[in-house]
């Protein structure tokens, strides 16, 4: 009787409060660029790239877990910590790079909105401004909690991809074998195959995710004590992301690749091409999924960027503050949306090149972010007993090494290509 106040309701709220940031971050990871890469990977190489999903998942879990743990233990954002430990100049340069990278990503998201709605015959001159305004209002005028509920609900639409994969009637045995077997030596030497591996890793582990996840953990007030539940949120989120990715690859492999139609350029092409092969519903689902992914990421990326930059440079930030309390935060947020959306309205803009460039910058920035994260998570003054374990460090440094190698390879192939 004494503790009636701490009833089931508050306990339920507590567990709901912990399930969230990791899952959302991972879900947004499958954005327009990601879905494009997965579709092309499946269409061009069938089931032979599915093996990348297991190592990518391991790296993704390790990296995301570090960001979440840092947020819970220190109660500070990633850019806060970088500022305090590495100084103003490093922070400024990193924030500059992050704004450029994320602006590129935002353009890609609005491109995703435009192309998915063009499949339903909505012109981009209508869809892009409306989507930009919608995103702005959703985040600025709503409180963080209700915004997050909308986001959580929206990640349910990702099940579309699983259904699309099932409707495509894939060869399950070949898909499973492709997932667990090593790549063949001749595949690895193929130029186009390597580029695709680079793309898959690059699109799955992105710099913005680390900043966004850690900031969300801090904003939610998750502490070291509650961290155990958050870790599960992060891990489940990573698996969710990669399972969806797996199904997208499988769907495209079973249809486009099997029918000998590998030449698609982006996710909208994939949806268009799926229509006669997998039926009307698969097509609609694929397009709806792409639209949601793009809109979802378009609402998170500008917020994430504004958070990171304002925290790092010591400006007021947070969705729980009013516009006049955190003007720099909201202005940066607004300019990123307006800037990202207006690029698409320029007639004849080379979209493919902008998207490719944003992927390169993503890849160049990521190793730096990871190295900062590793140095922070190994700092005992900061993390206390929650410093990285040896196994953790090995996996994380291996990820950094692979990412740097892949990034150099990507830059090299880009230069070679052009």
């Amino acid at each position, binding site marked *: *009787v*004494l*503790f*009636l*106040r*701490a*009833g089931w309701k*508050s306990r339920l709220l507590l567990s709901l*409060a912990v399930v969230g940031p990791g899952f959302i971050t991972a879900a947004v990871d499958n954005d327009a660029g990601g879905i494009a890469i997965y579709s092309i990977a499946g269409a061009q190489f069938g089931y032979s790239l599915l093996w990348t999903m297991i190592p990518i998942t391991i790296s993704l879990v390790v990296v995301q877990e570090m960001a979440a743990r840092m947020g819970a233990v*220190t*109660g*500070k954002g990633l850019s806060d910590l970088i*500022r*305090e430990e590495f*100084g*103003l*100049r490093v922070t*400024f340069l990193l924030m500059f790079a992050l704004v450029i990278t994320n602006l590129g990503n935002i353009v890609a998201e609005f491109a995703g909105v435009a192309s998915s709605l063009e499949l339903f015959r909505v012109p981009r001159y209508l869809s892009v401004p409306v989507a930009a305004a919608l995103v702005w209002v959703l985040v600025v005028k709503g409180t963080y909690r209700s915004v997050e509920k909308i986001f959580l609900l929206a990640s349910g639409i990702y099940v579309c991809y699983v259904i699309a994969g099932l409707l495509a009637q894939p060869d399950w045995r070949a898909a499973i074998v492709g997932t667990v077997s090593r790549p063949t030596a001749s595949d690895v030497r193929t130029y186009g195959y390597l580029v695709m591996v680079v793309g898959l890793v690059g699109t799955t582990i992105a710099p913005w995710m680390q900043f966004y996840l850690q900031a969300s953990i*801090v904003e939610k*007030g998750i*502490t070291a*004590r509650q961290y155990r539940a958050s870790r599960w949120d992060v891990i489940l989120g990573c698996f969710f992301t990669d399972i969806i990715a797996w199904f997208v690859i499988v769907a495209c492999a079973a249809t486009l690749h099997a029918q000998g139609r590998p030449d698609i350029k982006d996710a909208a092409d994939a949806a268009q091409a799926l229509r006669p092969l997998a039926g009307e519903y698969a097509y609609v689902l694929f397009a709806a999924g792409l639209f949601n992914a793009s809109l979802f990421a378009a609402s998170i990326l500008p917020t994430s960027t504004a958070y990171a930059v304002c925290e790092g*440079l*010591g400006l*007021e930030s947070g969705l729980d503050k009013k516009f006049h309390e955190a003007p720099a935060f909201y202005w940066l947020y607004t300019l990123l949306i307006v800037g990202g959306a207006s690029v698409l309205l320029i007639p004849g803009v080379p979209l493919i090149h902008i998207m490719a460039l944003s992927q390169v910058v993503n890849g160049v920035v990521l190793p730096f972010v990871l190295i900062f994260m590793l140095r922070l998570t190994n700092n005992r003054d900061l993390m206390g007993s929650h410093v990285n374990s040896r196994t953790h460090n090995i996996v994380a440094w291996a990820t950094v090494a692979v990412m740097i190698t892949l990034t150099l390879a990507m830059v090299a192939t880009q230069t070679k290509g052009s």
Partner: protein
Amino acid sequence: MALVALSELLGAPVRDASGTVQGRVREIAVAPQDHPTRVSYLVVRTGDRERIVPARALKSHSPTVRATTDASEWESYAPSDGVLLLKRDLLDRQIIDVHGRKVVRANDVELDSTPTDSHLVLTVVAVDVGARGVIRRLAKGIVPSFTLRALLERIPPRVIPWPFVDLIETDPTRRVKLKIAYEGLSKLHPADIADIVEDLPPAEREAVFETLDEEVAAEALEEVDPRVQVSIVESLDSDRAADIVEEMDPDAAADLLGGLSRDRSGEILQEMEPSERQEVTQLLEFSEHTAAGHMTTEFVAVPAEAVVGDAIETLKRFEGGHEAVATIYLTGPGQKLLGAVPLLKVATTAPTVPLAQLAADTISCPYDTPEDDVAALFDKYNLVTLAVVDDHGRLAGIITADDVITMLRQTH
């Protein structure tokens, strides 16, 4: 008198008495035990080690730092807990801007340099939190210094004078040595302290609540967001937490303890004074969303036959919150509620008049009234306080209008 920025001094070459450059400035130390704002020494990185150049040996700082002593006289530097190192402890760190009532980040530190007969006196005067400090540091060594100076003069300064700066130090022993007491912070309104604390990371929140005076800490804690409240109390020692909880309004204390784990609230209750513990335990038994869940047991009650003078005497001895005194309740044997008199009538009537003559219709509600109905009663009768009675009509507690506002804001 001239101003010099910390970032200009850091890395500056240091010449000794002979005029040769012996090293570069790495840190600037203030020893609060000796003087709260005056620079005590510079830490200079010479070829092989770090050395101390005492402030009394400084002659000038521009364009290079000049010392009046020979480098061989400079002692080796050993880290010490008792000094404030401006770069390590202040630059890029979060500080509390007491005047602006918020948490900000230090972009640079402004020092005043005044030459005396024998040496240069460097004093910390302000913390730069604006664009000027950022640009100075980003452009240092890239833009020629005279161009930079001209550019910086065009940027309006955004500085916090040193007396309005409260440092955040999470190590308790260092806090004592550095004489950090959150004096500025504790003078703010509890609601402002709460806002500041909510913006701090958990370890820093704990530091503030370990240091603040119990009464101030209790008032501030009442205003803090419930979720943050719980994390603060979880992080404190049980006896410190109990000291703070005892000072809180019983209803707020009960709400807080109700949000904690059973073990934790048990420990805290154990550490509390018996009388406070009993009050809070009683309140804990009620459901959160009823009248009893929102009531406080600190109210003003006098016997029904009392006169105005008696009420004033009771008010003088009353220790509860000022919201609770708006109404004086009249009770009969066994705390039975018989009437209520508004404070205004008591204040404007002669001391000999019996209170019963001033009593109006008394609005009260049973303790299990749902909170929506409580709000409706406040609305309908334009109440400032509402009496809560038990099954036998005994006055159990009162609900004040501010509790109703909090309640409504939580549900919407």
